[in-house]
């Protein structure tokens, strides 16, 4: 879903992170993507995954645009029947994470340097071949960008980013989530997930 192919940021426009809770059934992603596309908004990334309630998915959408344009996009998304809740996290405190896999050329004389860069960023080496490393790094967008820029001169052979996923800090939950999510935990279901006592 990532529309940006290069890891280079950033036009002047503000970055907005929007989270959506949506019905988890076929066609919903297409609906969200079609709406964004039809309005001509520029999507930086769009990620989707199930929530603890399997009937609900969570999407994280990163767009760049003027505040008024994004406000309009949020309203439009809200209008979709399959969208349960939309929250623009601009101005909120949140943790953002993204994962990147980079396969970088590793000539013998460059190996040590690449590993040092990986070390500084606390990236993991997840695959080693005679002439390449595959590195994995999670973090905020800026950190990933910096990492990629440092690796670029060595020759990036393959490159994959997941797109952003985010969560607000502390006790606050962006806009009340669904009632189901606030129900007393069903201990039978979550045993093993939640430490009790």
């Amino acid at each position, binding site marked *: 879903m990532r529309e940006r192919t290069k890891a280079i940021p950033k036009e002047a426009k503000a970055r907005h992170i929007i989270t959506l809770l949506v019905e988890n059934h076929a066609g919903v992603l297409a609906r969200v993507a079609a709406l964004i596309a039809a309005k001509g908004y520029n999507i930086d990334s769009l990620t989707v995954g199930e929530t603890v309630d399997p009937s609900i998915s969570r999407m994280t959408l990163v767009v760049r645009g003027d505040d008024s344009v994004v406000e*309009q996009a949020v*309203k439009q998304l809200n209008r979709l*029947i399959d*969208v349960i809740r939309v929250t623009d996290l601009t101005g909120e405190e949140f943790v953002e994470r993204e994962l990147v896999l980079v396969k970088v050329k590793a000539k013998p004389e460059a190996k040590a340097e690449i590993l040092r860069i990986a070390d500084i960023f606390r990236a993991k080496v997840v695959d080693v071949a005679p002439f390449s490393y595959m590195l994995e790094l999670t973090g905020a967008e800026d950190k990933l960008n910096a990492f990629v820029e440092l690796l670029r001169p060595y020759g990036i052979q393959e490159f994959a980013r997941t797109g952003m996923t985010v969560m607000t800090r502390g006790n606050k939950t962006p806009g009340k989530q669904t009632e189901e999510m606030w129900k007393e935990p069903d201990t039978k279901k979550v045993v093993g997930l939640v430490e009790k006592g």
Partner: protein
Amino acid sequence: MKLTGSEILLRSLVEEGVDTIFGHPGGVILHTYDVLTDPAVASKIRHILCRHEQGATHAAEGYYKASGKVGTVMVTSGPGACNTVTGLTDALLDSMAIVVFTGQVPTTAMGCDAFQEADVVGTTRTCTKHNFLILKTEDIPRIVKEAYHIARSGRPGPVLVDLPKNVVMGRAEYHGHPQELHIRGYKPTLQGHAGQIKRAVELMKTARRPLIYGGGGIIHSEAYEELRELVAVTRIPVALTLMGLGAFDTSDPLWLGMVGMHGPYWSNMAMIHCDLMIAIGSRFDDRVTGKLSEFGKQCKIIHIDIDPTSIRKTVHVDVPIVGDVKQVLGELNKEVRQVERHWASDFGEWYAQIAEWKAKHPLRYGPMLDVIKPQYAIDMIFEVSERMNPIVATGVGQHQMWAAQRYRGRRPRRWLTSGGLGTMGYGFPAAMGAQAAFPGDLVICIDGDGSFQMTNQDLITCVENNLPVKVVIINNGYLGMVRQWQELFYNRRYSQVDLTIQPDFVKLAEAYGVIGLRARRPDEVKPVLEQAFTTPGPVIVDIVTEREENCFPMIPPGGAIKEILDYGDPIPEKLFQGLR
């Protein structure tokens, strides 16, 4: 006992109160059409066989607009479904509640380029309020319930339900229509924010030149009484959009007229000179605002709308109020009644100013000698039919704008026109749909010779179903509105607008077995119309008019409201350089 999906579907429709389906059968939907012959269904639901699916969707729109009851359409897969796209888009832009059922190839064949397959849910994703693909027979009752609810509630709109063949042929237990409805992502805000309503009243208290700018939302929420009361208390003048016509009594002295590209001079002037604009169920369409950068700078704006996306979409709003127009106006009226102000006497200057504009720039047209002026024809339609309280539909073009200016539709839900999409060919099938809802009423379609030719095949549908629609063609032998633009903005280079080679509309009528009448001279207009409106059955009246008459006033496309051109004004040189 288990029933087939088709049986469940039609029982659900009966439970929903559907009494009329506009449609066209085909291979994949045959199984469902078969159930229409079931006496239990046939006695409750009338199916009107339209000759083209586009007509069926516009008919459903007309049925909805006139009656307030959701219009229903049923068509087959692929080609049938694709033919509904124009109607769906039209319904989306004008907030018309219709539900379209489309046949679909079996789920196992979907995505395989099967015969008459089309990705209908994908195709109609952006031209419906919502659409469904039913995958399980047992889901049919719930989805039917949801589809009608979504179509009619909130900002009304079109909903499409795609019915794969194996789903309608499959069997499931039918436990009746669901009582409860739970769509967690859909809860339209009905009640306006109390604080915002108070802020609105604060603005109203001090306004010296206020204006109500009302739109179709007033009609959809049936807020006429509330609007009338607001005006009765505050004495604020009312202008309406094309879609809002009928929401306010046109004989009230505070009624100004339509606003927008072809609205009269004085109501457009009021838009750019007011100090407070109260937008009610109107969405600041670009045909109303003109050049945006020059719109609304002189005034504060209050905007009441059920659709939050309509607010601040294009225009800055000082007090946004999201809610159902009827409810919000009800609350607003309570507050307004507390205000101690002698409104009318404070507005003396404002009224005088509007009256002056009106006197200087009335709606007018040139002298009429032997050739019928189209404006005169509209005036005569009004004169002859008004006391019969007709429903009036229009095509799209000059005749539509003349009708909007001059046919003073006095009553809500009696004015059917395509505003948002501007769909030529809308008027006649929409009139047919309204006639199906009100078989005993006079339904007139004021049409263009171009527009009528887009959907005229439904004439036979009117004959077959005893729908006595009267079509009055304002026949200028041109795609008139386009010709007007070419005259004004393209230096009279007329490209592909000449319709002199056209069917003989009287003979066309006769070919369908209906009465065709014609007027060529001014003195023939009135008698011909009188005859048409009192003759039973469908009638076509061909009124041959002056060919190159233009529709004024006109705000040039892309221009600001203040650049409005009135009848006889010289056309500024810069406009000849083509559209900006």
